[in-house]
């Protein structure tokens, strides 16, 4: 391989990206837009859930429970109504997500040591937030219930120590505040790499065919290997730049923790880019058309990366067969690595399984990519 020729092709490719507004957009603006949109838009946690309340009793006890809802950062009691249909209407009209109905005998039953219940009506249109709302509501009610119990025991002369219920003291690691943005943003870097890398590399060979420059290029002594390397290295550099940009944005703007090693981030990103660029390049060689190539490339890179990599949808919650498929989705290893690097403070040593899996992919894809292009019309 001749480095001078390779460098010449790389320089040419770089100039072309710089002068092509579409490529420039993909290379610089798209990653920024994507990370901003995912950081702001794709929030999986629910807070300030709007609540309507129908308090049939209006006692001190029922008000105490409502205060707890009010105090929770997950809920906003926005309206107190005096009939049941008002709550159903509010849910239908999407004015609230949770309707709370406190029965007329609430405090009476409580003080008689009877079991009592409040009714929660939850808008289940979005099952994820419905589950979250249910969970949070239960937690609020349980907290209140425990206090009531303790008070009851105290009144009846039992020591608080003796009867204190067993409590689990949770401590969440790596994402202490359980914020979904911390879960989403590291994985979003994989999405940015897949989108940017696949789009740019899928255009590279197809562009030469479409613009009629390929015939002249294959009439030069440049080898297929030099053409491939020269064409892809600029995108590898752009990809690394984008990864750095996204990381800076994630940490500086979204306050995502970055606890792991930069080396590990570099190594995994390089390997992921080799796979993505190799795939885009092979598709570009095969289709010879820029539009067709970019569509195929998105299909085989962005789609599995967004759906099957564990980026937003946890792999261990997927059904068995789908979970099995994720093992061949190369992006899963990168996403796992990214989350471990950002949140769990992983270094290269902790990521040996992921790095090994990605190395296998990089070698296999690299091997086929070098053989994909033939210097012939």
């Amino acid at each position, binding site marked *: 391989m001749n480095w001078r020729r390779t460098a010449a092709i790389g320089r040419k490719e770089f100039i072309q990206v710089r002068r092509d507004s579409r490529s420039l957009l993909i290379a610089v603006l798209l990653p920024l837009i994507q990370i901003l949109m995912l950081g702001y838009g794709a929030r999986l946690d629910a807070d300030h859930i709007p609540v309507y309340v129908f308090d049939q009793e209006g006692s001190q006890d029922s008000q105490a429970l409502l205060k707890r809802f009010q105090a929770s950062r997950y809920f906003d009691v926005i309206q107190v109504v005096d009939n049941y249909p008002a709550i159903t209407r509010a849910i239908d009209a999407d004015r609230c997500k949770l309707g709370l109905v406190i029965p007329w005998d609430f405090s009476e039953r409580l003080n008689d040591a009877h079991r009592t219940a409040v009714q929660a009506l939850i808008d289940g249109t979005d099952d994820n937030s419905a589950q979250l709302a249910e969970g949070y509501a239960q937690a609020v009610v349980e907290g209140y219930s425990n206090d009531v119990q303790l008070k009851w025991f105290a009144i009846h002369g039992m020591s608080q120590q003796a009867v204190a219920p067993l409590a689990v003291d949770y401590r969440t690691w790596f994402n202490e505040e359980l914020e979904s943005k911390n879960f989403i943003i590291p994985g979003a870097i994989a999405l940015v790499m897949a989108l940017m890398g696949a789009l740019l590399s899928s255009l590279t060979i197809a562009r030469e065919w479409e613009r009629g420059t390929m015939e002249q290029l294959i*009439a030069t002594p440049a080898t297929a290997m030099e053409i491939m390397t020269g064409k892809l290295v600029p995108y590898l550099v752009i990809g690394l730049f984008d990864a750095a940009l996204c990381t800076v944005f994630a940490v500086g703007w979204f306050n995502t923790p970055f606890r792991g090693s930069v080396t590990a981030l570099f190594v995994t990103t390089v390997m992921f880019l080799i796979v993505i660029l190799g795939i885009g390049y092979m598709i570009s060689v095969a289709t010879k058309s820029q539009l067709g190539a970019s569509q195929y490339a998105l299909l085989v890179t962005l789609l599995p990366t967004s759906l099957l990599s564990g980026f937003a949808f946890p792999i261990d919650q997927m059904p068995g067969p789908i979970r099995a498929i994720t093992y061949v989705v190369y992006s899963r290893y990168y996403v796992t690595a990214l989350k471990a690097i950002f949140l769990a403070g992983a270094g290269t040593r902790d990521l040996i399984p992921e790095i090994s899996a990605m190395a296998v992919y990089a070698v296999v894809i690299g091997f086929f990519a070098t053989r994909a292009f033939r210097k012939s019309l």
Partner: protein
Amino acid sequence: MTQAMVQVDGLIRRYAGRAVIENLSFAVQPGEILGLVGPDGAGKTTTLRILAGVLPADSGGARVAAQDVLHDPEAVKSVISYMPQHFGLYEDLTVDENIRFYAELFEVAAAAREQRARELLAACGMTPFRRRLAGQLSGGMKRKLGLVCALIHSPQVLLLDEPTTGVDPVSRRELWGILYSLVFGGVTVLISTAYFDEAERCHRLLLLHRGRQLFWGTPAELKGMLPGAVLSIASTDPERLRAALAGADGLLSAMAMGDALHVVVNEPARRIPELRTRLEAAHLAFDGITTVAATVEDVFAYMVSREPDQRGRRP
């Protein structure tokens, strides 16, 4: 005899079951301009592509600059240069960037590149446009830039596919001027053209028609093959004259050329009065019949008329 720079023996290339070029055999000596002449679909582009090593052949032999291009197409690429018919340079790169790109691919040293680029650009009248994007050049200037890029590494053999098609007369003259100075310096040139007047400028011609080799030799030799003389009958409607003269005695071929009908006849002294009588009998207007010097186009038309047609019949 010196070793030929290009040697082609029985070259065949098929496409979709049909021969695109059939059994071509010719040679080009160092410092010679060979013109590949023929209408569209004659096989000119295919021939040049095979010799440039960008298209494989089905059988036959082809050696260029002492390299076997069919078995090792890459070996020849550093010493030859091929300019495709369609502009193959990067429109989003400037003139200088294109030149530099090709110079680097052929490993031309920076100093040599600069000197050669300056000479070539000056010869083309393109010196003021070095920083202009190639896409913003006129058609003729694009061609000339293509030629500059093709020549930046001082190739031994230059393969040009219709470099003058769609080029203005001034640029065409400049292009030929550059070619002559190259040949003077020992470069071998293969140039395809659909313009017969350009064929006269070549040292040797390869006449192609539907992939078949009609003739290979000098323009003088070609004209010597005509078994008669060319008559020009001036008329505003040469096609009607042609129809009226079909089957006339001693008429070997007829072809409309602008405002005249060119006919090839075996004995001009005897045939001129006969043709005149025939045209007058048909009440067709014409402005006299004169004997003219045969052009390459006349001979080509004559040869094509002798060719079996697509169904294999002879006329």
